[in-house]
């Protein structure tokens, strides 16, 4: 058994899993505060990464300026999306809401393909060295940066929700919309804000992944991969999303390892999370940290 490879894969899984966790957190944020299941989460990553790429290549801005500009764009994009498309859907049955986000996902996916083409592109070089070695393991510097960014985002989320007025308003809205409204919270503003935050933070993850693997349409697949992660953790738990993300990240790499070493089934990396998803839905549909949905007559 090749322990070194396994360890390397687990580390990779941990790093990728942290990013899944970040995207999952955005998903949970939108679900908790607006009760919308966002199938267009992956497109936030896609659009954000491509906008950043276009700013860097066509306008030749320095990396951090372009990065911050694209984040600002994504914040506006998320808010506009909520105002134009999702606001008329408030109070509609769940299938309509799901279908609207699926429609958005298809629309933006093909829009991006149309504008930027289908071939993957890479960002200009940000760091001088490619990878450094820690304890004998090779870790790409971009991966290390992604870990740092993911951790910063998570800590930022914690302080935002615990210690800021807007965070408190969002938690109140998630708890009970009517009560929140009667206490003077603008629920509309909270809805728009949660979409803005989700779009911005997802775009950060998109840029980071794009720096490592290149920007391509496969970024939108992350939006689908997030489902196993959030279901594992429980749909309405932010901690659950992080734990689920890390678990799925490690799991797909470990599955890949065992597959390539022993089983030789192939394609395990992409498909293993979905088997896990089915098993969880079968035995524990509300995940590990989610609240049970109790219905009263």
């Amino acid at each position, binding site marked *: 058994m090749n322990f070194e490879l396994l360890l390397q894969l687990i580390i990779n899984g941990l790093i990728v899993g942290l990013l899944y966790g970040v995207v999952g957190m955005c998903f949970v944020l939108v679900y908790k505060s607006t009760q919308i299941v966002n199938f267009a989460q992956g497109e936030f990553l896609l659009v954000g990464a491509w906008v950043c790429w276009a700013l860097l290549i066509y306008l030749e801005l320095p990396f951090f300026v372009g990065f911050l500009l694209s984040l600002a764009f994504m914040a506006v994009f998320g808010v506009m999306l909520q105002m134009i498309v999702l606001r008329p859907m408030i109070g509609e049955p*769940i*299938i309509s809401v799901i279908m609207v986000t699926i429609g*958005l996902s*298809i629309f933006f996916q093909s829009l991006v393909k149309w504008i930027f083409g289908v071939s993957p592109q890479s960002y200009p070089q940000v760091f001088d060295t490619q990878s450094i070695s820690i304890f004998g393991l090779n870790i790409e510097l971009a991966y290390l940066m992604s870990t740092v960014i993911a951790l910063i985002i998570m800590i930022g989320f914690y302080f935002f929700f615990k210690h800021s007025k807007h965070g408190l308003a969002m938690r109140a809205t998630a708890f009970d919309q009517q009560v929140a409204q009667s206490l003077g919270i603008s629920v509309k503003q909270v809805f728009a804000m949660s979409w803005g935050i989700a779009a911005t933070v997802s775009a950060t993850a998109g840029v980071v992944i794009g720096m490592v693997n290149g920007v391509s349409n496969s970024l939108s697949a992350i939006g689908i991969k997030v489902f196993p992660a959030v279901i594992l953790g429980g749909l309405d738990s932010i901690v659950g999303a992080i734990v689920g993300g890390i678990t799925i990240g490690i799991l797909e790499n470990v599955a890949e390892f065992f597959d390539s070493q022993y089983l030789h089934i192939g394609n395990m990396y*992409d498909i293993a999370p979905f088997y896990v998803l*089915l098993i969880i839905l079968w035995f524990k549909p509300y995940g590990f940290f989610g609240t049970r949905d109790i219905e009263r007559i």
Partner: protein
Amino acid sequence: MSSLAMRPCGDFRTSYKQDNTIFETKTIRWFTALVIGLACFAPFILDAYYLTLFIQISYLGIAALGLNILVGFTGQISLGHGAFFGFGAFASAWLNTSFNIPVFICIPMAGFLTMAVGMMFGMPAARIKGLYLAIATLAAQFIIEDFFGRAEWFSGGSAGSMANPVELFGFAFDTDESFYYIALFALVFMYIWGCNLMRSRDGRAFVAVRDHYLSAEIMGVKLNKYRLLSFGISSFYAGIGGAMYAHYLGYVSAEGFTIFMSVQFLAMVIIGGLGSIKGTLMGVVFMVLLPEALEGGVGIMKDTSWGNIPMVVDGLAYIKEMAIGLVIILFLIFEPEGLAHRWQQIKNYWKFYPFSY
């Protein structure tokens, strides 16, 4: 079978028979018969392009009706219908080539096989609902798609598999003109069956489960049974549609049955109108004609002096996809009840013209 709200005033029904009828008036019945009768002569009049469109409408229409039974009548969500459609296609080709079963028996058999698979994946549906079910069927979509690429004995792997044309009494239906009749027969048969299903005890149970599942359960409707049954019937329709697709094209490859296809089926159902059998057909026609119309529009634009924009002409494939996404969004915002509702409104408007109120 229109719902109460859509019925114009003065249209009273005094017996169960009247309430349950498929055709509300004699005119509708004769008109339907006339349309079907005229459709029988279509191959003599229309050229091959329109026949292919019709055949496309028929196999997609059968599958979409299955999805409407699941989504529109039972209120369950499925994002894996495209995969079930593909499973039907491969199953029929596999049964035919591996066991030498005649094709016209293979098609219903493929339907039943798909039904079994659909019920297997629908099993969680007995426990979960709403968006959890959507995510479970999403997983089913990816797992079945992966299975197509992997199972060489079943689907031929990445090479795909060949499907023989339908043969009946030594006559091969291998041209567009002859297959048209098979498509027409299957479409009419499956739609009448769908109508009848909704008039039966099971159909009413589906609607009860959709409208208020707790009340339904209290009234003695077994929730698990009907949710599972609905999944089975929907997969059966998908399997039949898929099998017709396979034997029409003569070749099935594993690439086509993606999540995008599932979304297209959902789009047909939503655009047509959830819970409307007539609407399903309208939605399918709309979704089949939309790309054709776009292509025609761009074709006309290309010849004018102002419209020959290379980005639009070259990116037509992406514009088609974008149009599908956009149409879903616009319909859900502006006409959530679909074309069937719009049709009813137009009918009511003319019925009371010029005093529509």
